[in-house]
């Protein structure tokens, strides 16, 4: 059953993993639209798949960061992210084509996907992810997703919620240390 925007946002911000997954799953209904959009704008099926998945992940991030202000419907917002994501990817893959098409956006602040990072910073992100152990990655991910510490403890076999807190702190410190070294 289709959920309305408020329900989806509540689910995405809530701590119930099942609801969260159901809310994310709703966006699969827009996958054909995303694939079509990318194909019609010169991309391949694989590009479309990448853009669709990136867009869902980005939308989730924007909601978590409270950057979705509800000025449009969530679906429209999602479509804009798909469009911008494909635009960014195309600019990266085939810059000449994008410029010659004449739609270089000037009002960059309007883009929902505004994650511009320098090449070396992208490398730090990639290496930082790899440097963290599996357990650290999971603790940080579940915490970021708003899953309760009790549930994290249960899922990752910690003795207590305090142990989860300590582990999360240690992982963050480890990450910061790594970043400082890389800078």
């Amino acid at each position, binding site marked *: 059953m289709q959920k309305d925007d408020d329900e989806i946002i509540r689910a995405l911000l809530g701590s119930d993993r099942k609801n969260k997954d159901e809310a994310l799953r709703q966006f699969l*209904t827009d996958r*054909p639209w995303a694939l079509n959009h990318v194909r019609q704008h010169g991309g391949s099926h694989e590009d479309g798949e990448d853009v669709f998945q990136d867009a869902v992940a980005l939308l989730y991030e924007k909601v978590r960061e409270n950057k979705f202000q509800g000025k449009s419907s969530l679906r429209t917002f999602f479509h804009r992210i798909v469009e911008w994501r494909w635009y960014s990817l195309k600019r990266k893959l085939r810059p000449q084509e994008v410029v010659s098409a004449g*739609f270089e956006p000037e*009002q960059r602040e309007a883009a929902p996907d505004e994650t511009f990072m320098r090449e070396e910073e992208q490398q730090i*992100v990639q290496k930082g992810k790899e440097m963290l152990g599996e357990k650290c990655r999971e603790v*940080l991910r579940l915490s970021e997703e708003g899953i309760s510490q009790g549930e994290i403890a249960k899922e990752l076999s910690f003795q207590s919620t305090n142990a989860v807190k300590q582990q999360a702190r240690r992982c963050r410190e480890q990450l910061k240390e790594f970043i400082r070294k890389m800078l």
Partner: protein
Amino acid sequence: MSDAQLFEKIEAYLLGHLPQAEAQAFEQEIANDERLALEVKVQRLERAIINDIVRDSVKERLTKWQNEEPPKPPGNASGTAAAAAKNKRRKRIWLLLAAVLAGGVLAFIALKFWNGGKIEPQKPPATQPVAGEPGSEQNQPDLPQDTLVSPMENPVVNTPNEPQQPPAQPENKPPDLQKNEPQTPRSQQLAMEFAKYEPPTRRSSQNSAADSIFQLALAAFAKKDDRETLRLLDTPEAAGKSEMRYLRGHTWFRLKNFGEAAKAFESVATASGLRQEDAQWHLLLAYLAELPKTQAQFDQLKTTIQKAGRRHSHSADLEALLKKMGD
């Protein structure tokens, strides 16, 4: 400031949650304090790494769910290349059948004349070749013509989530074919009669790419070059501008693709702005054109406009429309 407080402040700054004045003051502080600048950078990258971990996990989940998705019913999977190929094959079969049928009819007519002793070999057949018949210029088996030019020029997106779209665009049909179409329903005639696009009275002060595109789209719309208008409006800038989405709605409306028109108007009608009431009115007309399928939406929006009374800039239009509908 304690470490925890500093962490919170940097977090709020990175997420854009600080009030503007506070954010500016903080930026000044960062510019004057190297250690703070480094701390902000570290925290930004830390956030980026954690976000990336979540992204990877979301993508993994999506892949898993996609694989679990039951196969789509035929005709519902327009997003895939396989479905496109299937549609192509289906169109070819229909065109072949139409050609065979037309050939049969012509042979029958010729035979009838021959048997009746009215031998008029020089007389041309009564009907002109129709799209799809051998020899006709319209006999392009793979529709739509614009895909032969560029995928950008084919703005028709027919996805399972947009069931209101009619399956074909009428604008490329030759006059003969349009003559044979069923009569336009009264509700559609009324909708077309009441729809009117009025360009904005003042130009945007921003000399942006979006503005230039909009001016080009306006010119194309005025020349009734709907395909070009849609092509111009099918850009990321256009997606973000309500004025452009509004024009897009009118273009689809003129093409009698009321489903797409409704979608474009809806995106403007639901957000407050200069065009909100115009978009509501034209959304109502798009619903009207598709009655009885859209009866519920039509009634709901009609009530909304009626409730607004004289405050709504199209209340008089609505009264006139309802009067005509009652005739």
